[in-house]
């Protein structure tokens, strides 16, 4: 079976995305959750790059750069917040951060 390279690339991106999704669901450590999200973002980036190469335009690659930049910003803010939270809760277990409910 010959798979079209674009399809193959999209499938790969899809698998990566789902992997990230599964790991965010099974992890309770906030840092790992953040990492999983990053995987998903990169999966999306990969999909853009694949699509971009399929159409032979640069749009998708530009988008990928945006994603990278945004992921970096997000991680930085995220880590800062996690640090702050760790100060207060002395743990990284996301289940502990459940003071608000109902």
């Amino acid at each position: 079976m010959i798979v079209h390279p674009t399809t193959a690339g999209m499938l790969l991106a899809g698998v990566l995305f789902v992997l990230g999704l599964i790991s965010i669901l099974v992890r309770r450590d906030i840092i790992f959750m953040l990492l999983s999200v990053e995987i998903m973002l990169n999966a999306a980036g990969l999909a853009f790059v694949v699509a971009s190469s399929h159409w032979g335009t640069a749009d998708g690659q530009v988008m990928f750069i945006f994603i990278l930049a945004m992921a970096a910003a997000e991680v930085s803010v995220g880590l800062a917040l996690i640090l702050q939270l760790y100060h207060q809760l002395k743990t990284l277990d996301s289940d502990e951060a459940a003071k608000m409910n109902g």
Partner: protein
Amino acid sequence: MFPALIPLIPFISALLLMAGWKRFSRIGVTVTGCGSIGLAAVIAIIIAMQFSANGEQAIVQHAGNWLEAGGFKTGFDFRMDALSVVFVLVITIVGFLIHVYASGYMHDEPDYARFFACMNLFVGAMLTLVMADNLLLLYLGWEGVGLCSYLLIGFWYKDPANGYAARKAFIVTRVGDTAMAIALFMLFQYTGTLSIPGILENSTHVWSVNDGMITVIALLLLGGAVGKSAQLPLQIWLPDAMAGPTPVSALIHAATMVTAGVYLIARTHTLFELAPAAQTITAVIGAVTLILAGFSALVQTDIKRVLAYSTVSQIGYMFLALGCGAWSAAVFHFVTHAFFKALLFMAAGAIIVALHHEQDMFKMGGLKNRLRGVYWVFLIGCASLAAIPFVTAGFYSKDQIIWLSWSAAGGHVGLWLAALLGALLTGMYTFRMFFLVFYGEEKTKVHHQPGNSMMIPLYILAVLSTVAGFIELPHTMGHVTLFSNWLQPVLPAVSVLHESLAMEWTSQALSALLALSGIGLAYAWVVKHPKGMSDFLEMPAIMWLRGYWSRGWDFDELYNVLLVRPFVYLSRINRRDLIDTLYTGLGAFMEWCHNVLARTQSGLLRWYILSVVLGAVAILSVLIWRIYL
């Protein structure tokens, strides 16, 4: 003279008494209360004389419009014709006497003004009823009478039993009124008017004899009549109505209220003539009622209850007459009954007061010499009630009914036998009461003699109870027909099938004999052999029967089981309103939904992530499912 004044004067006086109850002195109240009725009586007499002089030309006064809507029109129209003149005269005259008596009877009552206000209102309402030219105005009087009976029966409001009796009277008669109201709707639907002459005139065009619809209408009117007149099956309120002061009982039984049914049927006799089936039912109801009530009267211990049952029984006679088509005979009996029943009640009242509000006959006795005046008038009253031949008014009126119940077109031998049995019972219970009260040993001390204001009305009524009969004598005894002639323009003469002097003699003799033997039995029972009699009465079967009769054949219990208790039970269990639980249930369901959903808001991050993921899965699977399937 304006006929409208007759009911208006009592109304105005009632209003005055109500509005100014604090400012009137006791004498002022007496003068206003009695005077207004007296004035009404005088005006009634004057109008009656004019009326008579004008050759019985009906006088109709249109005192104003009442309401007019969508083709329905009715006004305050008062009518004086032969029938209403009779009723108005009886009501005002007897009513006046009762008022005068009441001024003595109620002398120590603190709520004197309220009493007279209600009494005046009562008379006014009754006058409206009998003078109304249209059925709606009649209905006004009809309901007004009900209201006043309620007010007066429950006059001594502190005792809940009185209140109960009052409400019972109002509600039970209201059941009849409902039937009557429906009859009004139907009459309007078919004849397009509620004016009585209009209905009577149109009815013969609209319906043929035995038409189903007219039968229904007549039966509904009969329903109204039996309610007000305490006939089977709505007779249950009257015995309890004794809770009111005695003048009230006299008023209810003699002049107002219970005779309204008789009046209604007489007034709408054309309709009943078109519905012979309804007429027959009327007669049967009358016959059955008069016997049942007679038995009940036989075993009562309370003097007023005896009289109450006797009223039911006597009105049964009137219904019997109406049912047989003997219209004027019914009205004649109404007149004589008004006299002697008022007399009996007020005399009984005098006894009760004299014995310090003792009503139990078995605690009376030997009053013959203690209360001479009362003794004599009571005797006259009893004689008239028991229809002692020749000398009493009751004899002539009742005898006519008994004879016609067989001989008239609507008569039947069964009805006749019932009427005769009634005569026997009447004699028995009347004189049982009489002997119990006045003979035997004295059980309660008389502590004061009735005053003049009480005795004079009694004397007048005693005279009337005797002489009133002579205006209408049967064929066999001179054949005077003053009364039926008078009513001729309104009420057609009875059509007699068996016109035979011999038969009539037989009937009269038989009824007289029965009445006298009833008296004899009572004498034997009470005076001669009280011992043997009481042994007989103590037998278990008889005991049971006595209880059964004295409870009025357990009609009360029947209605309690069938209607009152289910209604009260249902309304009580439903006090919180079942339908409301539907809504509170809905509210509870909402709250449940809230609780379930609130649990999803656990505050756990991964739970939230799961929700997003599940949402994604759901959306994607729906999309893909739609596309591939």
